[in-house]
């Protein structure tokens, strides 16, 4: 099973972060949600590995207490 990379892997982290936040500049919440959804879909397709995606999904919400 491929492993999700959770060690630093971005060559220019500050540039990336700025680009990500700039992407949403001037957008309404609704527009931002749409842009984020498109971004997730594009990146998921690029990764193309369901195991890696599942690990990312799990970590993305592991801080949220489980509700029954």
């Amino acid at each position, binding site marked *: 099973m491929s492993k999700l990379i959770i060690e630093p892997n971005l060559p220019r982290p500050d540039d990336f972060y700025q680009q990500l936040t700039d992407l949403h500049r001037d957008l309404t919440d609704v527009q931002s*949600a*749409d842009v984020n*959804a*498109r971004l*997730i*879909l*594009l990146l998921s*397709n690029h990764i193309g590995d369901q195991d890696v995606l599942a690990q990312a999904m799990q970590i993305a919400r592991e801080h949220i207490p489980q509700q029954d």
Partner: protein
Amino acid sequence: MFKTYTFPEFDYVRSADQDAAQPVKHPVVIVGAGPMGMTAAVDLAQNDVPVVILDDNNTVSVGSRAVCYAKRFLDISDRLGVGQRLVDKGVTWNIGKVFLEEDHIYSFNMLPEEHHRRPGFINLQQYYLEEYFVDRISTLENADLRWKNKVVAVEHQADSVLLSVETPEGPYQLEASYVIACDGANSKVRAMCGLESKGQIFQDRFLIADVIMDPKKFPPERWFWFNPPFHEGQSTLLHRQADNIWRIDFDLGWDADPEEEKKPENIIPRVKAFLGDDVEFELEWASVYTFTCRRMDEFRQERIFFAGDAAHQVSPFGARGANSGIEDTDNLCWKLKMVLEGKAPENLLDSYSPERAFAADENILNSTRSTDFITPKNAVSRVFRDAVLNLSRNYTFARPLVNSGRLSVPPFLTESPLNTEDTDAFNCKVVPGAPCTDGSITRNGEDDYLLSNLGNQFNGLLFVESHSDLNADLLQALTELAEQDVPVKTFVVASHDMELNLPEGINMVVDKFGVVKERLDAQRGTFYLTRPDQLVTARMRQFDKGRVIAAQNKALGQ
């Protein structure tokens, strides 16, 4: 009154059972003369098991209801002697198109391969299908279809089921070794057994309008719109049926008033908005429906088996209702025959529920996913759904995510206890538990199809490329298999026409385009064993009589 169809009225006929002093016992009684009850009846009766079918009504399905019949349905109907009539009357289609607003964003092809006898799908109103099956039953002497016979009680006895039946001339009782309940989504037999079908109800309403119009307006394809420009709802579906009737299915949302929406004065403007003012049409039938995805825990209680909607229900988007129902009866009937004739132990029947529940779960999963895409359940699902749709206009990667219904293909029963696991390596879509592939062949010099030759019994397929692939010992072994109490009738699948001196009971088919060999990843000497319902149950790279017998015994629950 329909403009294009006159509903037959079948006569109630008094049965001798009603005058018997004691309840008369029958091998199999089927409750419900809908599509599933009738496919079961034909399957059993044509294989020499007498059946009684009880139906509380005396006509076919009013309104159109099921529309899309998949290739597997047609393959099974061929075995039941009705396939050609369905195809002749139905509208053949393979292509589905998906639109977002005004743009065509995605297409799919239900049968991208050539050399199959049947297409990916036909569309046909359910009443025609039922009428053709009634006709077929009337040609079978040991099928006794009793209209206006309403089952009001069932009682399990030691080795039978006692059924209490009401008729226009009063009640009577009859006994059955086995009962098949095919009495639909609101199965009364299920309720009488104290059983439930459990699952998810979807909070959405859909309007079906069947309209008569010029067939040239649209091609015979399945067209599905997300956010249609002509309708304020989330989706619209268009399908052509026989008699120039088009099925239009509008999503109305949960708040719509079903009684209001069913009125012609409300339907006609919706259809007009869709077709444009200049297209003439007449309204044939309309209905507002909601749907559920649910199933019973077990499709059997003692000697009563549940099939079709009685056992499991899905949303309509995958055309997986009737198409899975016929796979139920296809699965059950040969097992009942074997057990009734003492050729298989009773525990063969134990495989019915797990095999078909496995299939039902796959159907429910697909149908639920489609429904969740078509009518998103929360705000974020909607955001993702709309993002997929909008990206799919310009980016092909998003198109496989667009889900307007994953249309019925037979679930492969890979977990079946009747399968013999592969010990040799094969690399093809067909696996043990899957229906055998079809393919063009010749038999006795005549063009034919493989599936038309398989079924109702165990079959073997032995692939040969020259007469030297067959020797006397091999032919002797195949003959012994063909002469067993439960025969295995082998077809020698020849790569080209050749002179083979085959003993009685062994036949040759010529794989004239090589598609059978390719689709089964066969090589010289490969052997496949198929069940009476055409499912592959075992395969091997080299024929071995002992292994074939062991696999057949396993498939018989022994």
